[in-house]
């Protein structure tokens, strides 16, 4: 940090790289919403950047760093509380929008959720085939190497999985 204060960019980059995973662990332990963790990590790093002139090299680094972290988490918690006081989180809206492009994102999210729910009813071997071949996009050879099953076996499992999924989705319709 002393070197960073003197303008040593390499040292500063190394320091920030070392701090980022530590921050993630600390913030994950103290923050409910995992989707906001990375935003908070960046917020703390930015706050450290603007406050770096206040660090006294004769004093330990960790208390200085953790004080900034706790302060920014407290600020974020206050912002979240204010936001939650006047916002309601909507469930997924079941309506279809007039413009086709507006539908795509919503419906693709719905499709992904429906697929995840449908996969549950498949046999383990069939589920594995769908995940490897369709969701991960592996070739038959790659999927065979990953699963330890033969190519022919994967083809059969995939065929049966598609039949089962067709029944599930036709039943929903």
């Amino acid at each position, binding site marked *: 940090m002393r070197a960073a204060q003197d303008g040593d*960019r390499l040292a*500063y980059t190394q320091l920030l790289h070392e701090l980022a995973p530590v921050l993630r662990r600390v913030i994950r332990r103290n923050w409910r919403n995992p989707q906001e963790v990375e935003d908070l990590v960046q917020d703390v790093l*930015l706050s450290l950047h*603007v406050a770096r002139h206040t660090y006294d090299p004769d004093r330990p680094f960790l208390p200085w760093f953790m004080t900034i972290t706790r302060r920014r988490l407290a600020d974020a918690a206050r912002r979240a509380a204010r936001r939650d006081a006047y916002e309601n989180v909507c469930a997924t809206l079941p309506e279809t929008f007039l413009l086709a492009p507006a539908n795509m994102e919503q419906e693709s999210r719905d499709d992904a959720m429906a697929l995840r729910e449908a996969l549950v009813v498949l046999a383990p071997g069939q589920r594995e085939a769908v995940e490897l071949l369709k969701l991960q996009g592996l070739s038959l050879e790659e999927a065979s190497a990953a699963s330890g099953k033969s190519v022919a076996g994967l083809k059969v499992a995939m065929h049966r999985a598609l039949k089962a999924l067709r029944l599930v989705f036709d039943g929903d319709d």
Partner: protein
Amino acid sequence: METEALIHTLADDATPVGRLLPPERRALLWLALTTVYLAGAVLAIGLRPDIAEAVGDGRTLIETGAALATGILAAMAAFCAACPGRPVWERALPLPALVLWFGLLAESALEAWTGAPRQAVTMHADFAGLLDLSLLGVPPAVLLLAMLRRGVPIVPVVTGGLAMLAVASLIAAALRFIHPEDASVMLLVWQFGPVVLLSLLGAVIGAPLLPWPRSRLRSTSDRPTSSG
């Protein structure tokens, strides 16, 4: 923005920074400037006519000393509170002196109220003293807030309260050289009382006046910061 990209942006922006002086030194600097200012103000307004007796009175000296100690320690505490990573106990530095000051005034006021015949204890409004305390305090308060904003107030409510306590206490001590009012009840109400009120005001306005510094990155979008 990805964290990796942010790190590179921050590193690109990492020009050498002027390190903040230790809080003790910054406090001493502010105290020196404020002392010069108050000495000039006292001389300009004029010393109280009975200054010789006042200085010779042990009680007055101790009370003035307690006020001075409160102001000095509150200034130290305010500057420490504007540095992340400092021990939390430093924020309580002025407390013993403040309690002593209040105790002296309260004890003396109680003695005057219960001991003397009622008609000998008179109270009157001392708006002149209140005005002097408020107006005299503006320049040192502005300077102190400007110096504190160079730091990073972690708890701006506490920092703001300590800052105003420092200013108000020093002004109250200086007023003992100007106003010939030594009645403890009067001092308790019209000098100590405003000190407490101004400290509370400082706490209330601390957050908006001592926000978290905004970033001035040369590139990328500016992430919003909160003063909390």
